[in-house]
């Protein structure tokens, strides 16, 4: 077409192409992308500032920590502001809607709590540096892009930005063997999963001629595509493998325990909440919109994966003595509950996913912040037995930890209760009776290992691990109080978030 028309001089040719695509980002486009812009600019600024501050030791952690918090706060406000400009941005690459805004706010909030809980940790490990905070910011940029993406290539790039930053964070203390191992395993298995996701994207692009979610949806809904359903099914299956890896759903959960155990505790808090919530958000969006018309085909797979994830997570957690590993398996089990809501594939299910991920993020960050506080330098004390007597030595820490554990179990008045309630309600509405029954049985099993921690904390005599325990630092204590308060608010007044979740899950239609 172009190459054969010799009269088109390069300059004309380019001008012609430009008019053909006729695109210039509007002011509204920039407003919709404002949170990411703020965070990227500040992340880049941190790299420069790190160079300027150089070897200045005192207060470096404080400067970068406070600056990161301020940046995230600004990004949070920008999200709220951008929510007033719903619609597509940058030629349909992004879509700003209530659903995207909800998850944007969630991942930014997770970032703030993670930064708060890492002040003391970084100081203790003598690893205060601007790169840590820049990587957190960039990772959140990737997650924000993911949750607002309306296009599979955008999903892929957002996912990679988020993942690659998290790979580095997992190995942040590079002289620690466990950190290296976590980073290596996370990196290899994460890239492996990405290849599957990409192969799925290639296939759906070949089958439908587009990578835009709404175009794919229209293609699957309107045209008579029964004759190449196998093609689309292969694409969906490959993408399912990729997403299941990222959300640590069975049978692709193997990486999670090692990575969560090996990474620095505040990083584990961050990556078990933020990237996971973002991966779930994009998983739901892709499968509910683009693959929405063929829901009958993928529902059984999600169903079995949900069941397997819950069973593996809960039963493996029973046998753990390392608390980070225990929480890792518990996090797998919780991914299983979320998969139940996805298997329900109705609008209540989507709002249940949103509610549950918010509640889960709060309690999980809180629990890992306790671990970050308790573990001491070099993460020496990370076994369940080391918590013995915490209830007497530091009643406040223990009480807040207890709130998170009770919320994990799903005791009423905590966010975890309503999260599970809405999930199983959605599953029952979708006639997934067996899955709900098995899910409830699973949460009963789970109660055992969470209660065991409580028993150790309150019923056992303090051991030598209590001797060198420092009082709570300000950062950790703000994290703990904020997450505990959030967990309780979600448990007592769930409508606060649920109404918003309900109204913004309308993208299904």
């Amino acid at each position: 077409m172009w190459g054969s028309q010799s009269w088109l001089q390069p300059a004309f040719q380019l001008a012609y192409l430009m008019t053909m695509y006729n695109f210039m980002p509007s002011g509204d486009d920039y407003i919709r992308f404002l949170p990411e812009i703020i965070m990227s600019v500040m992340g880049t600024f941190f790299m420069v500032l790190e160079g300027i501050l150089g070897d200045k030791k005192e207060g470096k952690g404080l400067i970068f920590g406070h600056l990161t918090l301020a940046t995230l706060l600004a990004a949070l406000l920008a999200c709220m502001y951008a929510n007033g400009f719903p619609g597509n941005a940058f030629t349909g690459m992004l879509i700003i809607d209530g659903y995207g805004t909800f998850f944007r706010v969630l991942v930014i909030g997770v970032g703030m709590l993670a930064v708060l809980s890492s002040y003391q940790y970084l100081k203790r490990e003598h690893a205060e540096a601007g790169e840590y905070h820049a990587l957190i910011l960039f990772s959140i940029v990737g997650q924000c892009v993911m949750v607002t993406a309306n296009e599979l290539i955008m999903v892929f790039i957002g996912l990679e930005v988020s993942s690659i930053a998290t790979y580095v964070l997992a190995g942040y203390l590079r002289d620690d063997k466990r950190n290296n191992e976590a980073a290596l395993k996370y990196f290899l298995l994460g890239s492996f999963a990405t290849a599957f996701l990409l192969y799925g994207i290639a296939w759906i692009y070949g089958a439908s001629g587009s990578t835009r979610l709404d175009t794919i949806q229209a293609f699957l809904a309107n045209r008579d595509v029964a004759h190449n359903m196998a093609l689309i099914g292969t694409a969906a299956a490959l993408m399912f493998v990729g997403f299941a890896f990222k959300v640590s759903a069975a049978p692709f959960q193997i990486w999670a325990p090692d990575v969560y155990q090996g990474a620095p505790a505040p990083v584990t808090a961050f990556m078990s909440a933020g990237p996971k919530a973002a991966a779930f958000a994009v998983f739901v969006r892709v499968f509910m919109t683009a693959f929405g018309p063929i829901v009958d085909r993928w529902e059984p797979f999600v169903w079995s994966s949900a069941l397997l994830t819950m069973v593996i997570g809960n039963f493996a957690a029973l046998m753990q003595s390392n608390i980070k590993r225990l929480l890792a398996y518990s996090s797998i089990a919780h991914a299983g509950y979320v998969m139940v809501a996805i298997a329900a594939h109705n609008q209540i299910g989507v709002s249940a996913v949103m509610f549950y991920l918010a509640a889960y993020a709060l309690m999980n960050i809180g629990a890992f912040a306790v671990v970050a506080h308790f573990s001491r330098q070099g993460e020496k004390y990370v076994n369940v037995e080391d918590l013995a007597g915490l209830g007497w030595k530091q009643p406040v820490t223990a009480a807040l930890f207890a709130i998170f554990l009770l919320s994990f179990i799903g005791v009423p008045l905590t966010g975890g209760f309503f999260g599970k309630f809405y999930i199983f309600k959605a599953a029952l509405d979708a006639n997934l009776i067996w899955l709900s029954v098995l899910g409830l049985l699973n949460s009963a099993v789970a109660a055992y290992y969470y209660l065991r921690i409580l028993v150790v904390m309150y019923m056992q005599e303090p051991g030598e691990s209590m001797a060198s325990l420092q009082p709570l630092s300000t950062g950790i204590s703000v994290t703990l109080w904020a997450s505990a308060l959030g967990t309780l608010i979600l448990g007592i007044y769930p409508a606060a978030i649920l109404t918003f979740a309900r109204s913004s899950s309308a993208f299904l239609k």
Partner: protein
Amino acid sequence: MDAILFIAFASFAIASAISLVVQTHPISSALSLIGVMVSLAVLYFLLGAEFIAAAQLVVYAGAIMVLFIFVIMLLNADSEGPTGRSWRVNLLGIPLLAAFVGIIAFVIQAFLPKTEGVSLAGRDGFVGTASLVGAKLFTVYLLPFEVTSVLILIAILGAIVLARKEID
């Protein structure tokens, strides 16, 4: 002509890929991977992807593989020893992988909408030249392109964090 080129370079790609998997020394594997990449570049050219063919050679076979070989040489990587797993366990996976190829091949043959064959002459002037790719990249795909710049920053940061002298 096209068929001959395809068959020649496709079989070279497969042979190199097999060699990547079975060679025990990392350097041999890396050189095999370069073989795959170069033959894919030829196939991209046959498919009318001029720009991608060039980028494949410059970025992939050039820059990325040089990095790999540099690291292999730096770490003085040896041949792998025995895997410690019995060959029976290893053989178990082969039928699964063969089944995967089989399923995909079946899906491709049975369900892909029939199209005309690929040939250099019969592609209706469809050529992915640099100007065509660039024009779309900087308009429709402007945002993903800009976001990849964040990715490059992360790569720089990652190298700084993981390779700096010591933490303190």
